[in-house]
């Protein structure tokens, strides 16, 4: 057990933006919520999964909907509290702690703000080890854990409790409710026991985020190369260095889909890299080679500062380093690849782990 103060929050936010792999929403507003909550209610207690009793009730909290809406219509802070209360009375049990459902982006920060407000601990575990766009894209789903009962809440005081036949229906109904609520909502979802999170979750993900964020901060302080520090912490590979020469976005079937094209610089001169995204970066390839593909992580970093750039923030002319990181082994199973692999997102390539692709790159 340890306490998270303002500096830890700042570092986690940077790491969260990186593991958000371009999507998940800018953690900035979530960071401010967490900072305000710490100012008002004091520091946050972070628990290691091993410290959680097996029969404790753990409920992840998150936002659902368009991150763009969240940037304009920030939460009141009462939504998640109302959602938790509703869920507790339905289940007839007190919630022991909360946790992030995804490590990337905005949603990695929201449980921290909620925890400070409610005086609950946060467990250092998530269900993705990164960010993904759909509710069933969590490791809990791979182990057959139900997303429901879940509660959706808005800032006006509306709450809805969902019990659904499967997670695909949960996604559908929750999405429709969220749009009516104004395009973004807060959710309490995947209620689990302590035993279940230990088995099915991805542990120590906040710790990794904090380490990544701190590495970038210290690199700046000591004039070190932030990129190589990040690669060390995340066990990642440099895929490419380039300048954005084109960015093409459109909305299709509820996703912000698109392609960012990078012209190589330095040792990559003459090569062109395409990064395809659907909210998150999912595929990186040059004319000749596949470099990294979902569920492995692809992050676009500012070449100077090492700070991660979201797909919305990518602009013509920006100088970037594109890095790849191995996903959690849970995603590399048959069901994992089926749920979040390239085929699910409509890309006609086979999944090959990034470390193998990186080796091929060396010999090619």
């Amino acid at each position, binding site marked *: 057990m340890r306490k998270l103060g303002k500096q830890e929050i700042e570092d986690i936010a940077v790491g969260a933006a990186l593991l958000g792999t371009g999507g998940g929403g800018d953690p900035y507003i979530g960071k401010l919520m967490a900072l305000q909550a710490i100012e008002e209610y004091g520091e946050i207690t972070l628990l290691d999964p091993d410290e959680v009793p097996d029969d404790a009730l753990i409920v992840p909290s998150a936002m659902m909907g*368009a991150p763009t809406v969240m940037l304009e219509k920030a939460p009141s802070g009462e939504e998640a509290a109302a959602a938790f209360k509703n869920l507790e009375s339905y289940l007839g049990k007190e919630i022991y702690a909360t946790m992030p459902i995804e490590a990337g982006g905005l949603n990695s920060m929201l449980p921290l703000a909620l925890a400070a407000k409610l005086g609950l601990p946060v467990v250092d575990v998530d269900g993705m080890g990164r960010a993904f766009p759909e509710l069933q894209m969590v490791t809990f789903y791979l182990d057959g854990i139900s997303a429901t009962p879940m509660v959706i809440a808005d800032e006006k005081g509306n709450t809805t409790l969902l019990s659904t036949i499967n997670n695909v229906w949960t996604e559908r109904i929750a999405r429709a409710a969220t*749009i009516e609520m104004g395009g973004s909502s807060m959710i309490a979802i995947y209620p689990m026991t302590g035993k279940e999170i230990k088995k099915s979750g991805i542990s120590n993900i906040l710790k990794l985020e904090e380490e990544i964020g701190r590495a970038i901060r210290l690199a700046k302080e000591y004039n070190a190369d932030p990129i190589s520090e990040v690669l060390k912490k995340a066990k990642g590979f440099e895929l490419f260095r380039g300048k954005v020469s084109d960015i093409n976005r459109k909305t299709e079937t509820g996703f912000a889909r698109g392609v960012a094209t990078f012209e190589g610089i330095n040792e990559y001169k003459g090569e062109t890299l395409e990064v395809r995204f659907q909210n998150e970066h999912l595929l990186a390839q040059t004319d000749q080679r596949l470099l990294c593909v979902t569920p492995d992580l692809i992050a676009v970093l500012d070449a100077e500062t090492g700070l991660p750039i979201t797909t919305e923030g990518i602009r013509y002319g920006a100088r970037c380093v594109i890095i790849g990181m191995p996903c959690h082994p849970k995603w590399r199973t048959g069901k994992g690849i089926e749920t979040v692999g390239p085929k699910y997102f409509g890309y006609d390539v086979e999944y090959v782990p990034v470390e193998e692709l990186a080796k091929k790159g060396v010999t090619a």
Partner: protein
Amino acid sequence: MGVYRIGIDVGGTHTDAVLLDQDNTVISETKSPTTEDVTTGIYTAMKKIIQDGNVPREEIKYAMLGTTHCTNAIVERKRLNKIAAIRIGAPATLAVKPLIGVPDDLRDALGKYVYLIRGGHEFDGREIVSLDEEHLYQIAEEIKGNVDSVAITSVFSPVSQAHEQRASEIMKEVLGEDISVSLSSEIGSVGLLERENATILNAAVVNVAKTAADGFINALKNEGIEAKVFFGQNDGTLMSVEYAVKYPIFTIACGPTNSLRGASYLSDSSDAIVVDVGGTTSDVGVLVQSFPRESSLAVEIGGARTNFRMPDLISIGLGGGTIIRIHENGGFTVGPDSVGYRLPEKSLIFGGDTLTVTDVAVALGKVNLGDSSKVAHLDQTLLNKVYDKMVELVEEAIDKMKTSAAPVPVLLVGGGSILLPEKLKGASQVIRPEHSGVANAIGAAISQVSGQIEKVYALAEIGREKALQLAKEKAMSEAINAGADPDSLVIVDIEDVPLAYMPGNATRIRVKAAGDLARLEVNELV
């Protein structure tokens, strides 16, 4: 009868001024030191060009000012208005209160009267809840006599301005028509906190802008000049004094933009890389269709995050005054420190004791300046290596700013640009326009007038073409309102960002239109 215009750009070390005729020919130009109060420096530079220009004073009809008054006030936290900040959005947004992300000293200066009241809109224009007018009347009574400027920010006001406008009416009803009211929908785009910060900062510098404008107009009057005064904006276009006093925040960081625009005009190039060599640093920027390419990073002003679009620049530590150090082993370093504005006393060629970039260029015969005999003793082979290194620094910066390997034209401006060579790697040609030393003041003088609009459209209802058309028309009418000539209007920027997960294909569209100053007044004169 001629029509002349004055352009003034206030920089960190120099205040530059030019006097142009109707055809934008330079009649006179000057560089004078920027003073601490800014205004004195402006006055000195202005007087000089008027004297040197020797044109009939009544024929000076326009004066354009790019100034750092507002930036300085925010950075120093001085001379700021007493403000109230009202956010309309509760119960939403309570988890992130106004000014939460800004530095404490700025919060202390601006955070005395902060309110968060019920109201605001959803992304599709529905009300979150109805506006709490009773609370607004209460607030107005409470701040009466305590503040002289009010910032109002409503959730999704870029989609619907209704609540901000009603709130403004209530403030004026209670506090009188003279109270200054800044509305966020007039200032920023989607992104509540950034827009709110910009609105609060705007409210805080209203007096500063008014003082600067009055001072400038009076200074002109004292010289017997009745000119129409414009202020330069961060996007390289002009705004009227009336507008500048209402929206002074847009004067922030107009300097780099002016220098890029001036370079574009002087060399008649629309797409190029511009290297502005000053005394301490060189700024490298990119012209796209005669306008600066904008940065993708969030811009902080005085530590507060805003969503202003600023020119995308790389600054390298190489200017005319940059210090060169020769080591015993034959190695050397270039900068990053500089003698700056003390070049005329510190550098070798002017009798000083410090080897600078300027000395190197003179010793190698690249430039004819000062007393070259004072650098004749230096080792030419070594100096050539130093010079190559300087050029390499510039070439690297140019390469970083390029978007493809193809060579592009490079424009050299600024006082130190004479130090750079005729050829640069990666440049299709190197252009050093005449009057390049005061390109920024010229940029201020020749600026266009612009209008911008940003709105969320439901494409499923009206289609993309129709939405773009509506947005363009709105932007153009904004530009005409600001004083642009309708015939010269062009759309200079279009951007549409789909809102993820939204039904109806909701898309945020931003359009900017710009045109030359309408010549109406010129016609009236003839």
